């Protein structure tokens, strides 16, 4: 080892020490967050290696036999591979297409509202469902749509149609999932956009009015362009979880009758991995899902950076 490198390394270490010392309070401030991520997000990653092992409780993670990609191949060959992948992609896509714009539209509408009292009432009512647990949301949903005395089916009956078994028919699963998702989250998410809207300089609107712009023109030329960066950041974050469909809600809503459209990767992992005690298989499928998510996030971040100069990193 040459003396030069040693000296350089020493210099580098000294610089790091200095940098750490200079920013010591910032580091202290960040410490709880860093520790949290290490303990709850990085250390458990070690457990993900069971995807490559034939996991045995008795022998522990490190002691279990290494089997490489056996469980990944088992999944790719499984009868439900294509279906779980398709359902995950479609449910995510529909949630994105219909669910993503919903809070933006809600925020824009609320922003245009003149009566502040009415605006506050609507805001409160629309973000209330966010604070109710998913179990209860699904319980309410089941009651609303049940074919015996549910209010939705009462309406269906009034229209002269036979009651529909919404929770039991595969065709209805995705519409129910997506619409109840909007109901659950649109109000809450709109807060972010409302915050972005308040930061728009009012002078822009004043000069627009002086120039004779209509309200619609102001909306499309000023309001929407001003919140685009926020929208893009939200979209990138959303892309990272695109292939993650909330397991609890699907699990609560689906039944064998709706597997066709409802069975997603995470519920499949749950059924086979946890209920079927095939932990390694479940871990492999879950890991596969995470890899897709990471690729999606990186790709979209790259595209966003190129197209709009807004990106996460």
């Amino acid at each position, binding site marked *: 080892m040459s003396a030069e490198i040693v000296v350089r390394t020493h210099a580098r270490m000294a610089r790091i020490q200095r940098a750490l010392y200079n920013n010591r309070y910032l580091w202290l401030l960040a410490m709880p967050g860093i520790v949290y991520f290490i303990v709850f997000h990085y250390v458990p990653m070690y457990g993900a290696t069971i995807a490559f092992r034939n996991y045995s409780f008795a022998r522990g993670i490190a002691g279990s036999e290494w089997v490489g990609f056996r469980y990944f191949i088992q999944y790719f060959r*499984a009868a439900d591979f294509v279906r779980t992948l398709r359902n995950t992609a479609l449910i995510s896509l529909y949630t994105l297409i219909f669910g993503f714009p919903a809070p933006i539209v809600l925020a824009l509408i609320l922003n245009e509202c003149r009566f502040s009292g009415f605006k506050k009432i609507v805001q409160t009512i629309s973000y209330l469902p966010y604070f109710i647990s998913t179990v209860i949301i699904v319980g309410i949903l089941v009651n609303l749509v049940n074919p015996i005395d549910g209010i939705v089916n009462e309406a269906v009956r009034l229209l002269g149609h036979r009651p529909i078994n919404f929770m*039991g*028919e595969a065709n209805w699963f995705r519409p129910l999932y997506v619409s109840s998702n909007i109901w659950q989250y649109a109000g809450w998410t709109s807060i972010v956009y409302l915050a972005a809207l308040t930061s728009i300089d009012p002078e822009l609107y004043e000069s627009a009015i002086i120039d004779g712009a209509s309200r619609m023109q102001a909306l499309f030329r000023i309001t929407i362009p001003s919140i685009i960066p926020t929208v893009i950041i939200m979209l990138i974050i959303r892309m990272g979880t695109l292939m993650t469909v909330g397991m609890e809600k699907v699990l609560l809503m689906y039944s*064998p*009758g709706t597997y*066709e459209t409802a069975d997603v990767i995470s519920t499949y992992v749950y059924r086979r991995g946890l*209920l079927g005690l095939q932990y390694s298989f479940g871990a492999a499928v879950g890991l596969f899902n995470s890899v897709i998510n990471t690729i999606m996030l990186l790709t979209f971040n790259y595209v966003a950076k190129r197209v709009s100069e807004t990106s996460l990193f």
Partner: protein
Amino acid sequence: MKKVYRVLALLLVTASLVYAGGGREAAGTRTSAGVQPLNTHGLPIVEPGSVTLSFAVQDVGGQFVSLDEAPVWQLVQEITGVTIDWQLSPDANAYDTSMMTRLAAGQSLPDLLRIPGSVSDAVRYAHEGLLIPMDDLIETYGPNIQRLYEENPSIEASSRTPEGQIYFLINYLLGNENANLTAVRQDWLDALSIDAPTTAEEWHHVLKTVKESDVNSTGRDDIIAYGGYIDYFLSAFGMTSRGGYYWYDDNDRVYFYAMHPQFREYLEFAHKLYRDGLLDPMYGSGQSMVAELVPQNRIFAFNAWAAEPELRDAELKAAGFANANFEYLIPPTTPDGHLSFSTLNVARNTQRYGITKDSRYPEVAMRFYDFIYASEQGTRLTLAGIEGEDWYIDEGGKLQFTDLAIRNPSYNLIGYLRTHRGAFVTPMDLQTAEFNDARIGGKFAVNLQRIQDSGGNAQYPVIVPTAEEQERDAVLFTDIKSHIDEMTIRFVTGARSLATFDEFVRTLRSLQIEELTEIYQKQYDRFLGK
């Protein structure tokens, strides 16, 4: 910035090393058995308060008294001297989910537990070393369990692994058996002057007639004709069922229903019921409102457990339907009158209870199990409640319930025992002969007799698999089960045409249903002693 990452990476590596090292150490050291003054015979088992056993099970739930407050379980602790540290989950599903996770981690397990999952899962936990073998413990500390096994060899047979060891105690059901028959409104049949149905065709006719009538006089089309499980009708097509997926035929050949020559006709029949609006309108959604609709005078037929019709009659009468009268029907027969129907196994083996490797007092645990699982005193207390207040022994030596328990103004017998005593639904889900004979009679006993007279009584034992069988079963069964569940519903609701039935069978073959059938055949042969 790069340097910062390097520091972080270093931190990460150190942290994971520390973590991994810590984990290994915890797994490696076994706490040696604590010294405790154990009485090898008689009660209390230990000096009161000297030993605490943790016991993980699902709680009773609902409006009933929680196990950790239940008077009978307080008494159990007083009598045995063992303090119970309950580790309760609100219901069986929640319990299974959390306990499976804890078992997978394999650390800090409770002393006693209900083993989550199927018998295959229990064997896997046993082979993985999470459960301790019980044979020697039973030999020394389980006189009552030994007696139970001697009197009911099937309980012992179902408890043993193929290698001949016992790792768990199984739930059992003695005396008047619970057969989950179907109950129908006899008063409605009388009002419409139709006979009780016996074959599939008659069932369809009766259900349709009831559905189209206004026999509940509401002026609306609001009757749900059949609110039960459709596999009740399997017996009308020459199969035997109490739910589940497979059975054995007259030549002791195991078969999956889905592969039976008449399964398609059965599905056609069920589809006809669905199409004509005779099934539960929520069929296939995993939800049901039948239990709520029975007291509203809207259900004609549903699957009832023993003594339930009497209970439902009382509910309906309380709601003002004075003539309400549910009667059991024996299951439908084939057109030529053949009936094959299953009652529950004596050795039910639907739930299993073990002692974990982490227990510091396996001897105390076994004596405790012996008391609550098999002793006369323990089972009377945990099933029938408190002596003198809830029950007494009559001159003939038989257990009888007191008027206080039977004629409670607010509850039926079971409701009373569960609400006031925390009895009957014990964490171990047992039913002894004297208990069942004292509580079940009337309508149920008559029908049970009818089934037994018809020769249609069959049972499918739960057989403990070998490690290899368990491994293949775990891989194959989940997918096959999912596919059968799914396609049954889709065929019945008409979401999929029965013209594609052959494709369904082909898919099952590609999921290796034949290999799985062979495994079950081997197990059944082993059980028969072939």
